């Protein structure tokens, strides 16, 4: 049985199918993180976001995060889906879903996965404003 599903896609992510994939009879809880495109950053209106990935390396780094989560917590199934391309406000760039026997591990593992993904996985987002655009975190 596959316990990990990691994907990068330029198509809209399907929240329900992600939850269905991690569900199992052994699970007592599923923790889901859904990232969504916010309409502003530091008080400035955001029109849309553009995501770019170095796909082979991003998949490899996400696999490492998953392996580490399995070492640290009694995770049953773990899913990471990340979107690329142009996303409008309210759309979903990332879904993390984790099933465990008990909720504590699921919450902790999910927080670890999203926090580490934001630090190590080679994916970039550009914020598009009315009067310009900026690669997030590029400059100090």
């Amino acid at each position: 049985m596959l316990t990990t599903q990691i994907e990068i896609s330029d198509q809209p992510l399907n929240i329900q199918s992600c939850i269905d994939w991690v569900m199992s009879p052994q699970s007592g809880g599923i923790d889901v993180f859904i990232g969504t495109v916010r309409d502003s950053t530091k008080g400035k209106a955001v029109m849309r976001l553009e995501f770019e990935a170095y796909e082979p390396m991003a998949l490899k780094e996400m696999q490492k995060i998953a392996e580490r989560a399995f070492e640290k917590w009694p995770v049953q199934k773990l899913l990471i889906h990340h979107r690329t391309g142009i996303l409008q406000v309210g759309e979903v760039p990332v879904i993390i879903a984790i099933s465990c026997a008990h909720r504590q591990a699921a919450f902790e593992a999910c927080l670890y996965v999203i926090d580490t993904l934001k630090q190590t996985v080679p994916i970039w987002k550009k914020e598009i404003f009315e009067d310009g655009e900026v690669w997030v975190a590029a400059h100090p």
Partner: protein
Amino acid sequence: MKVNVLAFGIAKDIFGSSSVDVELPGQNTTGSLKKSLEERYPRLKQLASYMVAVNNEYAPDQEILTERDEIAIIPPVSGG
């Protein structure tokens, strides 16, 4: 030795291209590649940080490069 370097995110804007060829005059290390790139593209030094990936792994400055390696410039990541 000449290496091909892939660029992503803001590095692609700085290079004006998704990949560039770089001639390494001295040492064939990640560190000397960074030095060559920074001379050619001074805006790289204004980034908060950046890493070099060799064959899909983050590489330290002393890593030895070969012409067959897949090399990429990784500016600060911002996924999720």
